[in-house]
């Protein structure tokens, strides 16, 4: 029982960490490019922002699903029989 719970917590911690790292890299690149291109062509900034939010949604979908699953594993504990 305890070992299952401990392993679940470890797995959840790994999910959180790796998801966070991946999304952080992606958002760093994405935000950097947004600022760069807005600086090059300020008149395109509003349209670029729309695209930015769209891509932001694509970027964070897997990690947010992972975080949701991790939360589910921690609080609902489907593995503890």
């Amino acid at each position, binding site marked *: 029982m305890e070992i299952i719970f401990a392993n679940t917590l470890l797995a959840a911690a790994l999910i959180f960490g790796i998801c966070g790292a991946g999304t952080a890299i992606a958002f760093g690149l994405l935000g950097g490019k947004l600022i760069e291109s807005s600086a090059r062509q300020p008149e395109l900034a509003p349209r670029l922002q729309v695209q930015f*939010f*769209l891509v932001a*949604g694509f970027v*964070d979908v897997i990690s947010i*699903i992972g975080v*949701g699953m991790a939360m*589910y594993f921690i609080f609902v504990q489907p593995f503890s029989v």
Partner: protein
Amino acid sequence: MAERAAETTTETAQAAYATGGEYVQHHLGFLTYGKYPDGHWGIAHTTEDAAAMGFWSINLDTMGISLVLGVLFVWFFAKVCRGATSGVPSGVQNFVEIMVEFVQNSVKTSFTGKSDFVAPLALTVFCWILLMNLMDLIPVDIIPLAAQLIAGNEHLYFKAVPTTDVNITIGLSMGVFLLILYYSFKNKGVGGFFGEFAFQPFGVWLMPVNLIMEVPAFLAKPVSLALRLFGNLFAGEVIFLVIGLLGYWQFLLHFPWAVFHLLIIPLQAYLFMMLTIVYLNQACQHH
């Protein structure tokens, strides 16, 4: 001595966790009505009951709240539109005009085909999901406690935020998926629709590779659409619940998380709307 102290601290931590975990678990349950394994129909009293019901069950709380919010949206917009004037607009008329124009602009920039159906669909999707998401900003205990008081049963589960129920989000995305199929068949024909899977991007001779690449990408659309909305709202809701466990410190922490969530709530509604438009645009394009 030190060992014993460590033991007691772990014990108290576990005890605190057990109650905290129960609190969170209780708030993640649904008011499920369904068919018990022994054949009679009724409301589930525990999560085990709800799990045992399997397919023949319905979550009354999320269905009820989402339907009420949908009716509220339609009623409010219809009422304002009937009373719309070309003179100086009132506050609510301004609000409705802003919403409609915002959605109209999004459809104009992203949907290249011609359809009278996409803009109203996008408006409905956006406003309905926004309303359902906004339920998340109501303090987590108020609606469940009110439901328990009204029903007179203190073990009643009641979920206030419909989009933290995966059934609702998958239902929404299935609706969008059926529309994608309908528009694909209507605009491309059966041959054109299956040809997109078989002959792109590598040509006829690499058909298996094309199929392996394109079919999962197509089937992933509704799944990712549903799970994105669900995951964001579910994670946010659980973090509200965890903050709610902190005693008086929660008032300090609820505020910044609610502010952050104010960004997530319209963003997710907007993303669902935009992706609906983009997918339908792909379905309507000729090649």
